[in-house]
């Protein structure tokens, strides 16, 4: 597939993951599943469940062959070409890719979803977007758009693929996918109703316009570098107006009509069970050699909510792709010596959330004391096992994240085993507490949940905080309740985890700007607000990075939230699977170029 590049000035972007949690693994209420999840869920098999195709909570760069850098200048990385180059040999057609998803799906309406499971398990296989994130390269690429440009900083003009067509099934019967369809879908996402949960991301769009059947024009009220990431978000599926009108919404699989590489067998598909997909013989994209894609005959997926069952299925080769918990790596390697195992960094971040509107965390000295007192390497070792110490922007985005060499200069982020520095940091933490009037420390509950192993963070951090006189007692909440407390501000301190896509603005603005949707800390620092706002309109890549660095440094000085680590994991794939990367985002659209190297 060759994509003509536009003259975009605004391609310094990634995609966004605007899920409430990124991914949801069904972690049952039983003790057994939580025990298992402690060591399993977040580390691998189903870390945050966008399903194994998405591998979302963990993950960073795909295939380990390119840094997670943003695009430069005009960027629209041709997904199929890039992927084809990653594996030796000529792609062969045939085969059924089998995978198990641990992600619970609430419904299938992409524009009303808060978790990407419906996308990775359905829409990314059968549908298309205007642009999308290459899930292994972390670059925005055209999907229905073959090129785009910015005539001015506030205007995006997209030229669409001429051959894109809906699947040859009623009611569209293979008609072309037009700019009108794209505009309808974007406007639908921006619908001002409660369930359209991403409408606020389009609040800065002044006009949505289909200039002609193949040209989409969007005019913003102000320049926005991350806007392309919004468009490339995993939820921005293009849907047909006539389908929505027929079904009322897209919540059931009967309304799943797309033009993508695969077609879903609606008669067998069930969101709680799984489903089968077959190749779309009329897919408009071609590979680099002009051959037909997808290569696979089909895809089968089964919903498996239990981590041990997922592990067993992987170990015995009943599925072709997935992840394994790091502690099971040795067993897995022994039993599957030919499988490819990739270490992947994570885009999610573990952190201690401090409500800056409530005492004692109104005082920055108390917040800093907590940050200083933590030996993050020890937390990583005892808790997640795999991962990276993180500032505000996840290190999975190497280009944007504060370099580890600089991070190590900050108290609490010292080199592993540097006991002298750690002791010095704790002494400093005690001084800060004393200056804040808490010489003898204080006691209070710390909220967390066993779901997704968030509790590991609390369990490993609390003894360290006790060393400076802070006594926290864990209050275990159900995951949904914890998230409700975060959203409503009904907490004082909580140990939690959040996922956002590989766009630095999502890691900064959402969580630290006074108007950010996940500014659960209630942070409102003029300097930080200003830095975050500036990077949003800075089109120069280097200059933007400097602003983002400054914002991260300022955030470290404010210590809200107290960021700890980005959990990592292991992605595995059967020996015959080719061009399947360790995916950093909850996206499954790369499956259009996956192929099997076997007879």
């Amino acid at each position, binding site marked *: 597939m060759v994509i003509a590049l536009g003259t975009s000035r605004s391609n310094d972007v990634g995609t966004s993951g605007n899920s409430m949690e990124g991914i949801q693994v069904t972690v049952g209420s039983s003790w057994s599943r939580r025990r298992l999840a402690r060591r399993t869920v977040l580390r691998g098999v189903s870390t945050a469940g966008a399903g194994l195709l998405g591998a979302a909570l963990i993950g960073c760069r795909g295939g380990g062959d390119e840094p997670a850098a943003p695009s430069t200048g005009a960027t629209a990385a041709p997904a199929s070409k890039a992927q084809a180059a990653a594996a030796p040999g000529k792609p062969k057609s045939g085969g059924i890719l089998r995978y*198990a998803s641990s992600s*619970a799906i609430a419904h299938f309406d992409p524009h009303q979803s808060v978790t990407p499971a419906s996308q990775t398990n359905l829409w990314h296989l059968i549908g298309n977007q205007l642009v999308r994130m290459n899930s292994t390269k972390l670059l925005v690429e055209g999907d229905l758009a073959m090129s785009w440009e910015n005539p001015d900083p506030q205007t995006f003009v997209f030229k669409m693929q001429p051959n894109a067509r809906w699947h040859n099934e009623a009611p569209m019967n293979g008609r072309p996918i037009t700019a009108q369809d794209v505009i309808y879908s974007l406007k639908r996402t921006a619908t001002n109703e409660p*369930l359209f*949960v991403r409408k606020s991301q389009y609040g800065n769009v002044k006009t949505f316009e289909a200039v002609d059947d193949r040209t989409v024009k969007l005019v913003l009220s102000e320049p926005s570098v991350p806007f392309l990431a919004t468009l490339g978000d995993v939820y921005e599926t293009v849907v047909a107006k006539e389908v929505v009108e027929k079904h009322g*919404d897209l919540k059931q699989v009967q309304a799943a009509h797309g033009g993508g590489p695969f077609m879903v067998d609606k008669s067998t598909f069930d969101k709680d069970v799984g489903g089968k997909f077959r190749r779309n013989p009329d897919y408009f994209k071609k590979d680099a050699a002009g051959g037909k894609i997808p290569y696979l005959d089909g895809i089968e997926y089964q919903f498996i909510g239990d981590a041990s*069952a997922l592990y067993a299925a992987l*170990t015995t080769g*009943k599925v072709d792709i997935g992840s394994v918990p790091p502690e099971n790596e040795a067993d897995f390697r022994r039993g599957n010596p030919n499988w490819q195992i990739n270490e992947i960094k994570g885009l999610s971040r573990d952190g201690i959330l401090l409500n800056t509107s409530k005492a004692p965390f109104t005082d920055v000295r108390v917040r800093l004391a907590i940050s200083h007192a933590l030996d993050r390497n020890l937390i990583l070792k005892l808790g997640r096992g795999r991962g990276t110490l993180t500032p505000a922007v996840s290190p999975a985005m190497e280009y944007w994240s504060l370099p580890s060499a600089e991070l190590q200069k900050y108290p609490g982020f010292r080199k592993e085993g540097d006991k002298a520095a750690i002791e010095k940091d704790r002494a400093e933490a005690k001084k800060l507490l004393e200056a804040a009037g808490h010489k003898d420390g204080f006691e209070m509950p710390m909220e967390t949940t066993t779901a997704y192993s968030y509790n590991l963070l609390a369990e490993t951090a609390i003894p360290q905080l006790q060393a400076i006189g802070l006594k926290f007692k864990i209050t275990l909440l159900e995951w949904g309740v914890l998230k409700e407390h975060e959203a409503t501000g009904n907490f004082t301190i909580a140990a939690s985890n959040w996922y956002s896509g590989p766009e630095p603005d999502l890691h900064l603005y959402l969580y630290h700007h006074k108007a950010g949707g996940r500014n659960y800390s209630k942070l409102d620092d003029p300097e930080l607000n200003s830095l975050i706002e500036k990077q949003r309109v800075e089109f120069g890549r280097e200059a933007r990075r400097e602003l983002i660095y400054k914002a991260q440094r300022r955030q470290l000085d404010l210590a809200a939230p107290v960021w700890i680590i980005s959990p990592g994991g292991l992605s595995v794939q059967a020996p015959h699977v080719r061009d399947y990367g360790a995916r950093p985002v909850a996206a499954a659209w790369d499956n259009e170029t996956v192929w099997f190297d076997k007879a």
Partner: protein
Amino acid sequence: MAKYVARRLVLTVPSLAIVTVIVFSLVRIVPGSLAVALLGDDYSKEAEAKLNAELGLDGALPVQYVRWLRDLSQGDLGASLLDRRPVGELLAKRAPVTIQLSLMTLAFAMVIGLPIGLVSALKPNSPADFVLRSAAIFGLAAPSFWLATLFLVYAANWFGYSPPIFYAAPWSDLGTNLQMMLWPALISSVVGGAVIMRMTRAMMLEVIREDYIRTAYAKGLTQSYIVIRHALRNALIPVVTVFGLSVANILSGSVISETVFGLPGMGRLLVTSVLARDMPVVQAITIISAAVVMLVNIGIDLTYAYLDPRLRYS
């Protein structure tokens, strides 16, 4: 008999009514809000109120309860709050899986528990009896979810085996279906089998000391004839009671076994619905489960008459 059955059936109505109140209240006092979960980053008090109104979760609880009860009495179980699918349709797809799993579990429990109990009772305090009793105590003590996890992980690591993961209905692929059902049914039957074994042993020990058993031996009847025709039948009444109680345990256990083994039954639907706070689905599954348990208990009571003709219903 018919009068007795009719009276028992009528009496289930107030019991079910009480269950409806409990279930309806419980799913609403559980912390956490569906609206908050659905709204994600767009949460606001106003949006939550508007969404609750859309979902029919506004208004006073008694009003909501009466509305639900009215629909329920007309056979309308409501629709999923998440994807609007009728709950009846959801359950119709999943009930066969749970029914099959429950029947297989009950069968395994009986097949395991009864013979072992008999052997143990006929050879009391023998080495075999000690081994079997120890095994039964282990079966009672070992949680089925733990056994299931051990089975999955170690069978995979040691033998490279795991059950099929892509569910097949028995009418489409019986072999795959049985492979999927065998292990969860076997593991779920351990507890029930252990209970039945211990009850059978205890009752048989009591019965075989009765005078009429001694008389039977004196008459020269064979041991197998005495055990099967005279002792076992009398010993079975408490065992049947335990069997009835096992139905409730198996239904609740299906939540775990279906989740762990990836079976698309009502138990797993209950788990996903509870986590998603899909109240109509949770309510429907709970009510149906309660009704099934009540009906099974009536059936068990009727079985007593067959086992002991001296019993009369009035």
